[in-house]
């Protein structure tokens, strides 16, 4: 039979394209099921079977962890005994509670999905491309600009098309070049936390830096107290000799306090005005841009903004890490007793089978139902440890232009960029000279030499695309240089 033959053909070709293992029998039409995190297109690392999700570079995160553990360890070992005896045993208790909270929020921030947007399916991407072509009507030399304008609460917001993810980014979303994902309500990428900070883990991040501020101040204050009290009894030098770790702690905490407390203050301001670091750096809603420029996402009063950011509903992860990869490309179904479904995916077949009594389907094999919804799979993920980290923030939405090195761009950004109340200090890496690294966005990065100066700050996607051919692979570099030009022109 024609159908049978073609099915067998397809079956054969399916098997041959997959790497065969001795375990695969000829009866299997699919290779052993993979979990979605194994096939995740972004540059993330997954642990514990997809429950834990981090960025690719995690070295700095371990440094953060070590610093916190060592400093607190020294505090509990060398100072707490004295303080508990001389003052009150409540001190180590509070210190311990703070320490656990800091650790918990650090882990929560680092391990959770920041709000990654899954990439468009091929059908979706094709549909969007079609719409864009239709809207622009030309397939001439100039590639059509890929932005969409939408009016939110009276403000015109431009939605950009992401060439990597093949979607129009929702408002406030941004593509993280380090993780190669679009993240909802993207705040920044924090190397200290080893993850992006976005919609789903911003509150944990804020709790982390807030509690770390308290912990740092707490340790600093009580170590000083310890040294002072001890020096009353024995003399200053003797006190220092008895507890050398205290000196280290004081030094570390002294320098940390400025950065961490400053960072907490900055994020408190951001939360109360409902802005992201990204928006603040770019000055998206600053009144300098125009008299009518205001933040359309703000709820109007500080209290509501804070509540919404910290106590609002926690959206589930959209990327379903622990579900199974479904056969998504249109393909023939398993051989059935007379029923064949052409072009329908596995999930659709199962849905249709379930939904339509008219279509009486028999399959010789059970149809693989697609993975459980977010509800089922993300729960265990959330139950895992929380990670957070102090963020020397990195609101880098796109990679830096090819001709500029990161260090170079950071320096120049420091010249260009006002530093938001951060002092530059060095010793405690947690806070570090991240201040001027932090707020580096592609727009602050100067354009590579030789590029023409772009005249219009608003229509940058239009103007720059003239003369640039931007296939998807060049997207990030291209957009990045575009932003560099835009910033130069607007400064």
């Amino acid at each position, binding site marked *: 039979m024609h159908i049978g033959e073609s099915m067998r053909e397809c079956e054969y070709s399916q098997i041959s394209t997959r790497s065969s293992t001795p375990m695969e029998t000829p009866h299997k039409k699919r290779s052993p099921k993979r979990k979605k995190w194994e096939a995740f297109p972004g540059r993330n690392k997954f642990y514990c079977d997809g429950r834990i999700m981090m960025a690719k570079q995690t070295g700095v995160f371990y440094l953060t962890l070590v610093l916190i553990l060592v400093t607190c360890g020294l505090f509990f070992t060398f100072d707490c005994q004295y303080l508990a005896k001389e003052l009150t045993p409540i001190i180590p208790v509070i210190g311990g509670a703070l320490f656990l909270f800091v650790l918990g929020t650090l882990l929560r921030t680092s391990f959770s999905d920041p709000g990654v947007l899954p990439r468009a399916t091929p059908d979706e991407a094709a549909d969007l491309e079609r719409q864009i072509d239709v809207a622009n009507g030309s397939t001439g030399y100039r590639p059509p600009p890929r932005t969409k304008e939408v009016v939110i609460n009276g403000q015109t917001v431009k939605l950009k098309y992401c060439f990597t993810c093949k979607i129009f980014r929702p408002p406030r979303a941004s593509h993280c070049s380090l993780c190669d994902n679009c993240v909802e309500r993207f705040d920044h990428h924090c190397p200290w936390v080893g993850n992006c900070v976005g919609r789903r883990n911003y509150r944990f991040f804020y709790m982390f830096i807030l509690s770390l501020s308290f912990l740092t101040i707490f340790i600093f204050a009580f170590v000083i107290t310890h040294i002072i009290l001890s020096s009353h009894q024995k003399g200053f030098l003797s006190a220092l000799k008895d507890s050398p770790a205290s000196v280290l702690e004081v030094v570390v905490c002294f320098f940390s306090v400025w950065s961490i407390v400053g960072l907490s203050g900055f994020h408190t301001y951001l939360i109360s005005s409902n802005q992201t670091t990204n928006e603040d750096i770019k000055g998206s809603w600053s009144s300098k841009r125009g008299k009518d420029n205001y933040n359309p996402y703000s709820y109007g009063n500080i209290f509501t903004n804070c509540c919404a950011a910290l106590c609002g509903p926690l959206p589930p992860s*959209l990327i379903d890490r622990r579900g199974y990869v479904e056969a998504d490309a249109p393909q023939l179904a398993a051989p059935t007793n007379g029923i064949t479904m052409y072009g329908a995916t596995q999930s659709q077949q199962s849905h249709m089978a379930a939904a339509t009594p008219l279509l009486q389907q028999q399959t010789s094999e059970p149809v693989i139902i697609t993975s459980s919804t977010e509800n089922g799979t993300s729960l265990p993920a959330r139950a895992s440890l929380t990670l957070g980290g102090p963020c020397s923030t990195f609101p880098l939405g796109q990679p830096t232009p090819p001709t500029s090195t990161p260090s170079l761009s950071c320096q120049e950004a420091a010249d260009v960029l006002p530093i938001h109340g951060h002092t530059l200090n060095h010793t405690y890496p947690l806070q570090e000279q991240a201040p001027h690294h932090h707020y580096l966005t592609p727009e602050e990065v100067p354009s590579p030499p030789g590029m023409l100066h772009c005249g219009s700050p608003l229509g940058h996607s239009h103007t720059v695309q003239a003369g640039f051919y931007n296939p998807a692979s060049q997207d990030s570099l291209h957009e990045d240089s575009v932003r560099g030009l835009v910033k130069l022109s607007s400064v």
Partner: protein
Amino acid sequence: MKPCLLTVSSKVFIQRDYSSGTICKFQTKFPSELESRLDKQQFEETMQTLNNLYAEAEKLGGKSYLEGCLACLTAYTIFLCMETHYEKVLKKIARYIKDQNEKIYAPRGLLLTDPIERGLRVVEITIFEDRTISSGR
């Protein structure tokens, strides 16, 4: 048991409507590809209900604040034993979509895909060319 063939004729994608901000809301404009299959009113009712359900999931109110504060106090371990309000509403949405598919869409050779399976970006409606239904092919 009649053999039948299901061909995917095309897919329609209903995009998000961002005019109210970042909340999850889908456009309710009736796509022209569905004109031959479905009532405009039916479609708009489905979309409006979906939008209302998502609004309920993301609503800021006493209940969600309470949940948030409680979660913070218990260091988010409370979610080991109970699911978030958002997840509960997502389950409700999944049930609603299944129901709509069974009652309205499948008999017309259409299939609604739950937006959560597409990252809440689009509502995907698959149009099947059902040869058993269409007479004479």
